[in-house]
């Protein structure tokens, strides 16, 4: 039964990927896409497909998968169904770092690095506070929330200093922007994140157990070290995509719930299915964003936030609880 669902998910993912390659300002037919890939077609179509759409699709798949798995990790570690990757201050730290970088430079990589360092600083703060306070998951959530508020005040402060075009650029990034995709970047990021997702799967039993509370976990031999390891894996799974592609919201919150709905609560299935679902959702959101109102591109984060929210509410109302 589960195998059937995996097959269905993979087929759906392939279909969505094909759709994403077809859609854009120039709409290609699936036949044209196949021609480019399997010899023959080159020129403009080849350039668009291989030069722009394919790396972007791969980026969307990777970012979507790792944000979703990060959400699974944090919902388990914090025992809170409303937890998402950004609860650790990853997004706030990244935004602050990126805004700070915009004061000095307008190029991409320094900003990405600043965003990543900002994320790390925020996560480290939350981590140290919860370590000091003895890892109550509530204290972790609350310190993350408090820190996020402080950081967004900091971002607003920086915005009041920055010139308006820089504010616009940072804002676009904040909304989640996949247009930076290049093969080299995607390959390195993809390898790193795939390894982290693999590592997460190794922790599936620990996550099952941690979901039932700390005292329970302790009695079964799951230690705080496991919890903290998971915390860092989850944080990295969010920080790297955020630094490169911006703050894409809601994927990390919604996809774990959808995965749980179709594949049950065991993390052995939850992690891979959330990865598949997240990849699918973000690729779709990006394709929609690119084609909805040409020549403008609506950032993927706007689409995931809006449609993700609607979808989530529908599920919530129909099921009477997720």
């Amino acid at each position, binding site marked *: 039964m589960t195998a059937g669902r995996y097959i269905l998910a993979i087929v759906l993912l392939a279909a969505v990927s094909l759709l994403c390659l077809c859609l854009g300002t120039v709409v290609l037919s699936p036949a044209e896409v196949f021609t480019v890939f399997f010899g023959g077609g080159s020129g403009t179509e080849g350039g668009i497909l291989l030069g722009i759409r394919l790396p972007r699709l791969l980026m969307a798949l990777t970012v979507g998968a790792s944000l979703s798995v990060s959400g699974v990790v944090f919902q388990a570690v914090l025992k809170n169904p409303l937890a998402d990757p950004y609860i650790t201050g990853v997004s706030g730290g990244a935004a602050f770092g990126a805004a700070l970088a915009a004061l000095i430079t307008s190029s991409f990589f320094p900003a990405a690095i600043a965003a990543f360092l900002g994320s790390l600083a925020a996560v480290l703060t939350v981590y140290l506070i919860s370590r000091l306070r003895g890892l109550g998951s509530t204290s972790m959530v609350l310190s993350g929330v408090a820190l996020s508020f402080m950081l967004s005040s900091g971002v607003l402060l920086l915005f009041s200093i920055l010139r308006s075009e820089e504010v616009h650029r940072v804002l676009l990034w904040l909304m989640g922007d996949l247009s930076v995709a290049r093969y080299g970047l995607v390959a390195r990021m993809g390898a790193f994140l795939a390894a982290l997702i693999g590592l997460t799967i190794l922790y599936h039993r620990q996550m*099952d157990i941690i979901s039932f509370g*700390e*005292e*329970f976990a*302790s*009695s079964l*031999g799951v230690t705080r070290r496991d919890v903290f390891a998971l915390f860092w894996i989850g944080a990295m799974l969010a920080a790297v995509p955020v630094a490169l592609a911006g703050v894409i919201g809601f994927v990390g919150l919604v996809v774990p719930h959808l995965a749980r709905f179709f594949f049950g609560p065991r993390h052995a299935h939850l992690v891979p299915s959330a990865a598949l679902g997240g990849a699918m959702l973000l690729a779709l959101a990006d394709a929609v964003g690119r084609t909805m109102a040409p020549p403008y591109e609506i950032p993927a984060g706007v689409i995931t936030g809006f449609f993700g929210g609607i979808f989530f509410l529908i599920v919530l109302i129909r099921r009477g609880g997720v």
Partner: protein
Amino acid sequence: MMAILEARGLTAGYGAKTVISGLDLSVREGEFAALIGPNGSGKSTLVKCLTGYLAPGEGEILFSGRAIREYARRDLARELAAVPQFMPEPLPFLVRDFIMLGRYPHRRIFEAATAWDLEALRSAAELTGTEKLLERKLSELSGGERQMVFLARALAQAPRCIILDEPVSHLDIAHAVRIMDVLAELHSRGATVVAVLHDINLASEYAGRVIALKEGRVYADGTPTQVVEYRIIEGLFDTVCLVKENPISGRPFTYPVPGRLRNRGLS
């Protein structure tokens, strides 16, 4: 018999608040010990220390003669199981999968469930009478069924010693007795059972030893007949009560005396 659990000069609490101070206690292998005492007397704190979840402020906990903090947690979990008092709202795990979590300390990362694991699951389900629940979801069970499944999960650990924090406090009398019967059966098979019980009468009926805690110290310790005695129980809870003998089991049982009747006396 050898001591399986030992607290030496135990002082413990939360932050600046000390709940237990200078407590010495020793539980022998194969005992069925009940911990009783008023709310806030340190029963749960003691349990958390005995399971190694809470690190003592001072003193030491020994399991099987060795300091509990020296154990690798997984090694300890193969011998000592715990049923905590509070669990988060249960996730919709299948009961079978949930009980199998008890096998975690015995399993390797990639290992599929071994015949040994499946046998542990089967016998835990059989002993607790939860075989019919295995394919149901944990979140759909009643309170009594759920508590029985929690117990089965601990039994799947195949422990030498099991520690339970108020396993029956919110259950009706039939479910409470069913859980206690399982513990008695477990005890008769050689396991050491330590349970925090709110109900003095259940403690008296089932345990071979009753340990009464008050204000973080051992107030009384002995057989049910020695401890469930009206002067001790009245002093322990600062209340007035009557203790009689259960004609069937010969064990003492306690009756509360309502406030309005206390000044009447018997004569």
